[in-house]
């Protein structure tokens, strides 16, 4: 099981979602991806994308310094 970090800081939505989607497409079910973003919209958009794509959100929060962290476990329908 791989664990990777995706730096999507300083990107505005929907780019953090697009980068997340493209990275997840290269991971295997069960792998974990930790996404860092600064656009507060990512806190809603990335989990919403995970819900429609069948991935599990293990954690989603905005840290006091404004960093949005979303931790995803890749689901079975990965790819594409």
């Amino acid at each position, binding site marked *: 099981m791989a664990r990777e970090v995706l730096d999507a800081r300083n990107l505005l939505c929907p780019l953090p979602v*697009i980068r997340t989607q493209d990275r997840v497409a290269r991971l295997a079910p069960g792998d974990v991806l930790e996404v860092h973003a600064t656009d507060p919209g990512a806190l809603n958009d990335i989990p919403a994308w995970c819900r429609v794509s069948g991935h599990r959100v293990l954690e989603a929060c905005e840290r006091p310094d404004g960093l949005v962290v979303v931790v995803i476990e890749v689901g079975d329908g990965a790819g594409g």
Partner: protein
Amino acid sequence: MAKTQRKAVALISGGLDSMLAARVVMDQGVHVEGINFFTGFCVEGHTHAIRRRDRARPKRNNALWVAEQLGIRLHIIDIVEEYKAVLLEPRHGYGQNLNPCLDCKTFMVRKAHEWMREHGFDFIITGEVIGQRPMSQRRDTFPVVARESGVGDLLLRPLSARLLPPTRPEREGWVDRERLYGFHGRSRKPQMALAARYGFRDYAQPAGGCCFLTDEQYAAKLADLWAARGRRDYDLDDILLLKVGRHLRPRPHFKLIVGREEGENRFLEGYRKRFLSLRPVSHAGPLVLVDGELDEADLELAARITARFSKGRGAGRVRVAATTPEGGTRELEVAPLAAHEIRPEWYVERRGAQALRAAGAARA
């Protein structure tokens, strides 16, 4: 024997029509997934992230929201680079402002077609309605999109299908034509009735179109950018900066981007390594980016404008720091411009059609 389940890819803009079109086809047992294209000009998102007063309101990505309501997967595709060719050289020209809708639709359908073939899907759905929009959604332009995109009769428009020649999905019985619709014209009533039938609420209803290029003020700023640079080009940062702040061009060779509130100032901060920036130091005030080369007199004028938008506008003198992209700073002490000295024509976004013509970008 159960018939094979057909698969369709639906163009999802985030608006009601594409949502309904996808749903109508899902209702017929077809497996539907959504595709959404990011051109950089999409209406939602950015200004929300930037402007503090917008932050209080919950924001959402409408395309994702639609996918969630429908219970379908959504694939968001970044087409910022490829889209330049569409916007800069549209075969069919522009609509009301700088929106190349017909070329844009064709391009998106072509990309969806590529995706469809790569993923083994059978046909494409759009939410287009005959007569809905003056440029891209007319009876005579519908065949143009199908033909020039190369998708041919694998393009189904469920909301207007009954008024159009049968497509392959209809002829082969993948969908039942009788259960599609014959909507046409500008009225939104049939769509709203159908939405009510499906129990859709809170859907987005963009007024002009799906992107900023239909917005007159935005188009004027883009045309001004091209005119000032002497060439029609842009990158993603240009697109974003045109959404932020007041844009004033006091002289043909330079433009000021003036932050309107704290969130915008913070966003503009991120560009201080790319532009000369001005900020009042004796009083609270905006961050101002300068696009263009300034001589001493220009710098003084820029500083006086900056002072005008600061809390020191009523003061005799305001000290303004000017910082180069390399980080060198010097301070100027200036008298703020008086209100009447800020010429209305300096406001780029108010130039409208005039700027569009100047850029040679008037509609074809």
